[in-house]
């Protein structure tokens, strides 16, 4: 087998953003659960503490989002890495879905080799596009609106009230939970069980 060149797949900045973002998301889910069901999930000492932690990690996510965005914007690879083309959506997605659900089990080799230039296959690309360009911004915006209702009152009223903003925030939160689970699982589908995890820590894949 050909020796693959050891290329830096995930630069340090991106790795840092990823893990800070990841820890924040987990914390947001935990605090969010307590805020949504204060009498069922008592994870943190009290509701007030949970709310302030939620706010804090919300802002952490906001900043890591910008940090991530700034990095790719500076490198000018944001569109190339994250925005799927028409072909990728129409042909690439079913192809990779077919791989993950059928051909993978037959032992076919992974048809995609990540490189620093093209890190994601079309399926990943579309998913991450949805997450990073639609869901995270929406979640951050709704979160910000709910963080200071008084200040943002005119905007809140314009979109239909606190309930609507909250509904969007909640439903996205559940989607993030589901995404987190699937994300963690699919990360184990590398060359070895931990190779993707390792790449996200040291930057290189085996």
């Amino acid at each position, binding site marked *: *087998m050909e020796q693959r060149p050891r290329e830096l797949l995930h630069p340090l900045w991106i790795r840092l953003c990823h893990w800070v973002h990841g820890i924040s998301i987990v914390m947001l889910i935990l605090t969010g659960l307590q805020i949504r069901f204060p009498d069922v999930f008592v994870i943190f000492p009290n509701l007030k503490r949970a709310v302030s932690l939620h706010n804090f990690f919300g802002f952490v996510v906001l900043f890591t989002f910008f940090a991530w965005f700034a990095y790719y914007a500076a490198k000018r690879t944001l569109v190339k890495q994250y925005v799927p083309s028409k072909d990728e959506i129409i042909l690439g997605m079913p192809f990779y879905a077919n791989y993950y659900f059928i051909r993978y089990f037959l*032992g076919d080799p992974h048809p995609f080799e990540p490189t620093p230039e093209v890190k994601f296959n079309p399926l990943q690309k579309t998913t991450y596009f949805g997450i990073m360009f639609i869901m995270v911004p929406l979640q951050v915006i709704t979160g910000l609106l709910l963080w200071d209702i008084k200040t943002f009152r005119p905007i809140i009223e314009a979109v239909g009230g606190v309930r609507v903003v909250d509904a969007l925030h909640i439903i996205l939160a*559940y989607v993030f*939970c*589901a995404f987190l689970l*699937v994300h963690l699982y699919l990360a184990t589908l590398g060359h070895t069980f931990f190779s993707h995890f390792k790449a996200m820590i040291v930057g290189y894949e085996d």
Partner: protein
Amino acid sequence: MFFFAVLCFIFCPRGGLRAVEKDECFECHGSKEILQMSEEERLELVVPTPERKVVRKGNITLFVDPERFSSSVHGELECVDCHTEIEEIPHPQRMEVVDCGVCHEEVVEQYQGSKHARVSERLCYECHNPHYALPFERMSLDQRMGICIQCHKDVEHDWLPQQEHHFKYLECTVCHSPRAKKAIVFSITAEDERGNRRPLRYEELRPFAREHKGQVERAIDFNNDGVVQVYEINRFLSHLKEGGLRPSLLEQVLVIEPYHNYTDEVEHIKDCTMCHTSEAPFYAHVMLKVPKAEGWVSLSMDRAILAKIPSIPAKDYYYGTVHGKNGVECIDCHADLRVLRTEEGFQVKELGEPVCEECHEDIMEEYKNSLHYKVSKKICFGCHDPHSAVPFAQLTASERRAICTKCHCHPERAHDWLPQKEIHFKYLECTMCHSPGAEKGIVFYIRGLGKKGEEERLSNREIGELMDVDNPDVMAAIDRNGDGRLEVGECLQFLKLLNFLNSKRGKKWERIDFGVNVLVLRPSHNYTDKGTKAKECAVCHSSRAEFYSKVVLEIPEPGGTISTAKVDREILVGIHPIPVTSDFYLLGEIRISKKDIAELVYVVRKIGYKWLDIIGVFFVLGAVAFVALHGFLRLLTLRLRRHRQSRERRED
């Protein structure tokens, strides 16, 4: 060792000497000449043993009729099997008493402890002649009584009411052997021209069993369940009537298993209630004696027949029947019974026709105008048994159907057009379709289910036992808000309570829930044959079917009666935590309406923002399911993938 024993038995029976054969005995004892011989002549034929004691001989003579002996119960035995002292001929002049206890150990034991043995010192053969004894069940009443009357010739029973009647139908031991097993046995009799009743013989009955290869018992018990129902015997009797006979059942209380301890409980004998209640021991065994080509067979009979025999006055049984419970006395219908109550003495008279319309006036009016009456001319008790033990409301669908199938024997033949015939026949009574005017409804009842799924209707007493109160007010227990209507929630709450109490009190039933039937609630006696509506499925299979407007629950009341209470129709289509109606579905019962959609919108709105969490939970569960399924398949295909990868690596 065993082989040797068998050889010994074959070649050297009776102490190693040649066995004396029956024929050799009959050379002397089989001829009446032995009775005419003088003492001296006879003495020449035996080995004289004047020193030995003479034993009592009862009615047994030295002459034994070989033919009668061979047809007796002992006919298969050799003489020396009992007269064991005889080893060769000539035999000793005087011998010991034969010991019947060798075979009849239990009987001798019963007898020896009895007053009869103590006082009379009678030996077995002084009552029963062993040479001519018949099997007990083949003995006629006279023969049975003859055993006692040999000695007890002029017995006085002056205290006994209806003496003649008792003596005519009962054997002595029915009263005088309290521990004997008794039964009430019916036989099929016919009246001859002179008005005498006699049991019908097999040859006379065989033509009526042609469809059953001459097996009369199969022709009677045509549903072949081993028990003769009242309608089954009635049907057979009506066949006999059509064949020109004048049949009737003759009942007799018989001892079916004698007990040889007589008179020790003499004081109890004068107690009439030993027989004249429905608790009398012979009511436990009700049988029908049916002649066969050889002998006869005894079939079990439905106890309900007992309500129909006035000659054994057990009125308390009648009081359990539907008319009895409603306080109707015999004379209310059989007005001519008043005659029997005068001082003329007891005599069975032909009863006049009961007059149903005196009480059931409106039914009679409806029926008299019906096609059924005009064509069949049947009057009430042609179909209904006024002495029936169960009220109409408590009859199951199949029991109700039996009323019609008494005459309409093979309903399945005319219903080939009917889809799902078996299911319709199993659950519906005929009048569901054939009596368009009847009031129909869906009837729930409280039932307990056993381990094998067998169901039992819970009575008021059983519910009381669970709730630990006597005569509980079941309606009040279910209808918590007291509005007289049972909401689904109330029903489920009550079932939950019963199930909880059931598991707390020893778990008699596996589960308690509601059984359900589609039934006629109030019959209409105007029947159609192939009425316009009978073949129209939509009469029932539509959400607008009549019975949906009458959904009721049977409430068991104290004393065994039943009342009904309306239940919300919702119980039928709702999905409930306790599966009340999950096994009951009528095609066409569901028709979605505008109201249903409005209700759906209402419910969706009512849940409102909670949908977020419901949908959210589904998202997360979906993710978990994906991970689990993918991970499982991954594990499953691990070897396949490794195998392929290593092969490819080798190829590379």
